């Protein structure tokens, strides 16, 4: 039998966000404390350590000849232990990108007020195999001038500020 308007309307009670915040309906609050310390393992451990040194390191699989970044202890396609470490460049090519007016909490950036939108991109790293990209941010470029295939270079934090993190690279900027 058909699911009609009548059947469906009785099932849920519509609320506005304010009904809850103003206490028109009763509610209970809770903020869980969910903290973690994830073991990096040899691959990610070395990746971060080399970022601190200002290098970008990858790992090769001699079976499918991929130069993999971020490095990993096994090749997930050939399903065998990966082979030698190889340093790759801190330059690359924009595979695809975004001009984002929102942050991770779905808050809107004050673009009108002069805040630059976020421009994250998938960047294919030179030296890694074709199509092997990483997510990172673009900056020092007009958001509307970014194009597919644009050549970019990493802008590093000063050595003393680097902590061994992906954010040791502040962003990528176009290579003139």
């Amino acid at each position, binding site marked *: 039998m058909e699911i009609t308007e009548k059947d469906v309307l009785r099932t849920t009670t519509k609320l506005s966000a304010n009904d809850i915040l103003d206490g028109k309906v009763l509610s209970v609050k809770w903020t869980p404390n969910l903290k*973690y*310390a*994830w073991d990096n393992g040899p691959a990610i451990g070395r990746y971060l350590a080399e970022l601190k040194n200002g290098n970008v390191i990858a790992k090769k699989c001699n079976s499918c000849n991929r130069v993999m970044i971020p490095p*990993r202890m096994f090749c997930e396609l050939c*399903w065998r232990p990966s082979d030698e470490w190889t340093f790759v460049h801190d330059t690359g090519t924009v595979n695809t990108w975004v001009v984002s007016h929102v942050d991770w909490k779905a808050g809107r950036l004050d673009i009108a007020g002069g805040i630059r939108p976020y421009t994250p991109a998938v960047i294919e790293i030179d030296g890694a195999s074709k199509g092997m990209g990483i997510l990172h941010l673009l900056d020092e470029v007009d958001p509307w001038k970014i194009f597919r295939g644009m050549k970019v270079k990493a802008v590093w934090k000063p050595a003393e500020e680097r902590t061994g993190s992906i954010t040791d690279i502040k962003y990528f900027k176009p290579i003139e």
Partner: protein
Amino acid sequence: MTKRVAIIGVGTTGFRATTPDVSYRELTYEAATKAYLDAGVEPKQIDAFVATSEDFLEGYSIADEYSPDQLGAVLKPIYTVSGDFLQSLASAQMMILSGVANIAVAQGMSKASNMLTLSDMVTFAMDPIYNRPLGESPHAVAGMEMARFLYETGTTREQCAQVVVKNKRNALTNPLAGHGVALNMDYVLNSEIVSSPLAQLDISPHSDGAVVVVLAEENTAKVFSKKPIWIRGIGWCSDTPGLETRNWGQAVYAQMAGDMAYKMAGIRNPRKEINFAEINDEFSYKELQHLEALRLFKKGEAGLVTEMGGTEISGEFPVNPSGGCLGVGNLFDLNGGHTVLEVVLQLRGEAGKNQLSNITTGLAQSWRGVPTTTGAVVILSN
């Protein structure tokens, strides 16, 4: 059940309090490598995979994303069961019986040592409206259940302490176990009360580790394995989740899961037809409560038999020869993986010093821990 399904390969990393030198990727990769070697299969030959994970116990809000790579399941049929490992095993078996897969793999992992606020996470499983606002520790739920179980069955704290002594000693001779120790009952009875009558040593410490199990349809199993271990029966059940209306003395979920498995296996008298069991003992009293729920012992009898050594490795009905959660470590949703693994090793005669003699049928049982009323049972034969 026309078709039969067998376990043709198992692999594990063993269970330790911490595994600081490997990430979750390498941990599962090792277990999978060993399991596929044990079964004599390549990932290419595996038709379907089932991963087991709970988001908050991995630190992702969609942990399922990070399951295919380390199992060699990229662009292959894989999905995640957010439940206990035995439910994943049941899922893998159902895929084989449905004809969708000949060889299927079930995987589970614990990185409990990476969870810095584990107690907060278990609290986060409580009912947010009627229970969590009290802000009480999840161990209060276990304390209240232990109190009711002792009250209803006449089991004593000393008998629960004897479970701890037995399991932690068994763990000393189980190379896979992480928390073996030789102690006597006083250690347990005098350990600090956490939530009466539950003392610190009544509670399993947690461990890291991974288990991968390879299942195969009957004919395939006979081709690949010299010692296939047959799944004769499997069952799982969830009782009411509410604290207010549940049965606090009995593990009804374990009884119903057991009955489902016994029916499938054609077992009428479990105590006679089953030789040994790996039972969930996240808290000491749970081993006794589960044994009685599974009709292996009558009400109040499990504690007595344990006191007299009946459930020791040398006893009439060995329970947790591996050391159980108390000896191996609580692995959360991997607990079922540990019990299945140990029963398979025993039935294949590969349990080393703890090896039981002339056994044909074993039972593996698991429970999803506080505050759940969900458990599963699998019955295996060689």
